[in-house]
């Protein structure tokens, strides 16, 4: 085994170094907080019944949200994969990604515009039938709706890739064997998406588990709070850092268990998008109706909140917004941060996936307990952002800056970049890892035989299959950082002001209208990136 590790050192080393650096950073944050928390007995750092209740509810809602989001997302991806030619499909696919990356509060407001007590649906119903659903969007149902809204679109978007890379020949085979729809799904499609289902669902679970703004705004009552809220309370209100640390460790443990459960020790069937073979026949009529209905219905549900953000934004005084110096400053800061962090995210995700796949392929490194362990460690490092609450991350960086001679600005920059990269990594890896694994499984032997290595292998073997995923990851992480409030907002810094921060400030001082205008600008930026970036990548052919 050692021999094999040595043989693949160039592929293992960069990714492992990054993984280790991330784990080291996480350790450093916990350590410095531990050192700086005063250990007097009076600080009541115990876990109360209320916190146990919070943990239970957090797991419960995350579990429900994940199941619902996975179900809806899968059905939508399946319908979209089978309806591949309708008009506006590209635009719809771009829209599907944008809800995840907008600032959560904006999305919540969009959902409320549509489904709220005074939302569009209730108002139409009231007008037509004199009936209203009332305030169903608050409480547990609200949390679930918002989580499904945010995550189902991500699930659909990522699974669509997987569905599309199922070789069309298999569909032809299914047709000639006269498979029923169920058999076709169970025997052909399900095995192909199984691997991705596992990794995506664990990411979604963690996202719902650590959700903060949604749970607080739509939950409507302290009985629907999450662990993150308890951490916030411990840090901000009680200044009880030992308790916050304990809570953060609980979250870390839960994340570890999840990563363990979802890690793929054995690679599944191999699919990568291959030839442009077209399927010459249509789906059966009834099935077609069903798929069109699903697409139509979810399009409306996904688009309406975005439309409401758009309409709300039009009322803003754009002249005033654009002439505000701080707006321009925060716009450029946000764009700069997003550019740097998205490049780093893509790079890190590729390197980490490249290193990790060595430990998942039998012809590279033989199966053993040690191999599984390394596989786990690497995949855990990619999910570290979901394991460490952002408040703790921000606090940790702040403590670093206090304990060093380097100016705060440097640490603030580093904190923002780190947070943004770490935030994108779980998505990036869950999207990039499975195609990279499959490429290695399929082409390794050919590549080794041809002695195709380094940049050449990358150019001829990986890039053609990866470029659409890479462009998606690039767009996703760019927009994620664009929409991120930033860890530094918690402890303040005058040097770095981002667009979402500007937006929250507007909303915090009666200027809701201009806030809606900034939200509109963010939405347009996000959408245009999701629409144009894949086109740029499509045209980027190697010479």
């Amino acid at each position, binding site marked *: 085994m050692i021999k094999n590790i040595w043989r693949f050192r160039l592929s293992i080393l960069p990714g492992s170094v990054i993984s280790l650096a991330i784990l080291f950073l996480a350790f450093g944050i916990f350590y410095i907080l531990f050192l700086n928390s005063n250990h007097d007995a009076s600080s009541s750092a115990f876990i109360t019944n209320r916190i146990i209740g919070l943990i239970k509810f957090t797991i419960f809602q995350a579990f429900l949200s994940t199941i619902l989001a996975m179900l809806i997302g899968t059905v939508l991806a399946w319908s979209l994969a089978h309806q591949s030619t309708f008009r506006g499909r590209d635009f719809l696919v771009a829209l599907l990604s944008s809800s995840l990356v907008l600032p959560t509060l904006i999305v919540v407001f969009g959902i409320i515009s549509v489904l709220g007590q005074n939302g569009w649906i209730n108002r139409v119903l009231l007008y037509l039938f004199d009936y209203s659903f009332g305030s169903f969007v608050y409480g547990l149902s609200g949390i679930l709706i918002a989580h499904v809204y945010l995550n189902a679109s991500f699930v659909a978007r990522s699974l669509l890739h997987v569905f599309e890379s199922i070789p069309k020949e298999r569909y032809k085979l299914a047709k000639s064997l006269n498979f029923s729809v169920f058999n076709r799904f169970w025997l052909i499609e399900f095995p192909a998406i199984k691997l991705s289902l596992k990794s995506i669902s664990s990411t979604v679970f963690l996202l719902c588990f650590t959700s903060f703004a949604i749970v607080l*705004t739509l939950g*409507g009552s*302290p009985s629907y709070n999450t662990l993150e809220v308890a951490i916030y309370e411990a840090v901000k209100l009680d200044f009880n850092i030992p308790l916050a640390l304990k809570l953060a460790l609980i979250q870390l443990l839960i994340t570890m268990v999840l990563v363990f459960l979802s890690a793929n020790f054995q690679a599944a069937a191999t699919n990568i998008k291959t030839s442009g073979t077209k399927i010459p026949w249509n789906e059966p009529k009834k099935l077609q109706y069903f798929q069109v209905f699903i697409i139509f219905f979810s399009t409306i549900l996904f688009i309406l909140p975005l439309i409401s953000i758009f309409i709300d934004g039009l009322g803003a005084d754009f002249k005033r917004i654009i002439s505000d110096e701080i707006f321009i400053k925060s716009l450029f800061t946000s764009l700069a941060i997003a550019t740097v962090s998205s490049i780093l995210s893509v790079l890190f995700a590729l390197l980490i996936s490249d290193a990790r796949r060595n430990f998942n392929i039998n012809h590279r490194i033989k199966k053993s307990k040690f191999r599984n362990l390394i596989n786990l460690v690497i995949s855990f490092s990619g999910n570290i952002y979901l394991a460490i609450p952002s408040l703790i991350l921000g606090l940790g960086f702040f403590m670093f800056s206090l304990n060093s001679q380097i100016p705060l600005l440097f640490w603030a920059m580093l904190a923002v970049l780190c947070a943004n990269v770490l935030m994108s990594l779980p998505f990036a890896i869950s999207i990039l890892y499975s195609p990279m694994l499959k490429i290695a499984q399929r082409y390794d032997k050919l590549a080794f035989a041809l002695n195709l290595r380094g940049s050449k292998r990358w150019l001829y073997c990986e890039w053609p299959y990866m470029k659409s995923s890479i462009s998606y990851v690039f767009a996703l992480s760019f927009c994620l950082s664009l929409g991120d409030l930033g860890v530094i907002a918690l*402890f*303040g810094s005058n040097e770095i002001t981002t667009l979402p921060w500007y937006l929250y400030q507007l909303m915090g001082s009666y200027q809701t209208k201009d806030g809606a205008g900034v939200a509109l600008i963010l939405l347009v930026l996000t959408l245009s990136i999701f629409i144009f970036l894949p086109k740029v990548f499509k045209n980027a052919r190697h010479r």
Partner: protein
Amino acid sequence: MNKLLKYGFYILFLTTLLPAQTNKPTLVVYAYDSFTASWGPAPKVKKAFEKVCGCNLEFVSTSSAIGALRKIQLEGANTKADILLGLDKSSANIAKKTGLFMQHHIDTSKLDLPISWNDKEFLPYDYGYFAFVYDSDKTKKVPNSFEELIAMPKDFKIIIQDPRSSTPGLGLMLWIKKIYEEKASEYWKKLSPYILTITKGWSEAYGLFLKGEADMVLSYTTSPAYHIIAENKTNYKTADFKEGHYGQIEVSAILKSSQHKKLAKEFLEFTISEAFANIIPTTNWSYPVMKTKNGLPKGFYSLHVPSKMLLIDDETIQKHRKEYLNEWLNSIKK
């Protein structure tokens, strides 16, 4: 590329030198972000104060006043802050307990406040009353007391904030405690069916209210002034509760560790001056602590002014804060 980097570093280096060259002392004030925003009081305060002090005034913004306090606590002896501005009187005792702040020795007899002021460390710079805001075009029947509020029809909904993360939220909790004392828990139980949602901060709650989600939102009696002055809308009003309204008094204090104590005292005196009082109403949307020659802006005179400002004394709050919060949590739970 290398050249570009080099110039970049030069510029970075130069910007760090700039403030040092001016030779004036710099007074650093930590404040919450809506105070330091470009439309908030900070830019005007900076301009007015720098005219008279011969110094640089620098505002460092944090997401909340309590966040600023935590920042100072974490920074310890190395903190750059000379002044902490923006804490609510109700949570000022948390700051006092840290022992980081010094007495201000400023004459407070001329303050124009609904209560008498005798805090030796914290000096008020503006105040307001918590109140429920409603849209008079939409909501016709409005409760005029807490008792009437829990007798409203079942579809009457209010939005409030969480006392753990928001000043108005804390204000309402204390408001109800002040009126109902040991029966507060009972009252919250009766109130909870009327609560549409409890948000983290004021922004979310007020935003939802403006979207028409609820009949009333917890805010300030001065909120309608914004709609009158900045938007020319007179339909937003506050419900007048006959039990009286809980007050919010925002305060500032000087840090013991400050290197510019004299300058810091000058700034605190400035916050109770007429110049400052003229800035506050239309930037922080609250009442100044000084009467001015010009008086308040026009829109402020149409506001409802509560007959009585309710307050619980700081000591009691400090002692029982945790207990009140737990009581609130237990009674509001579904």
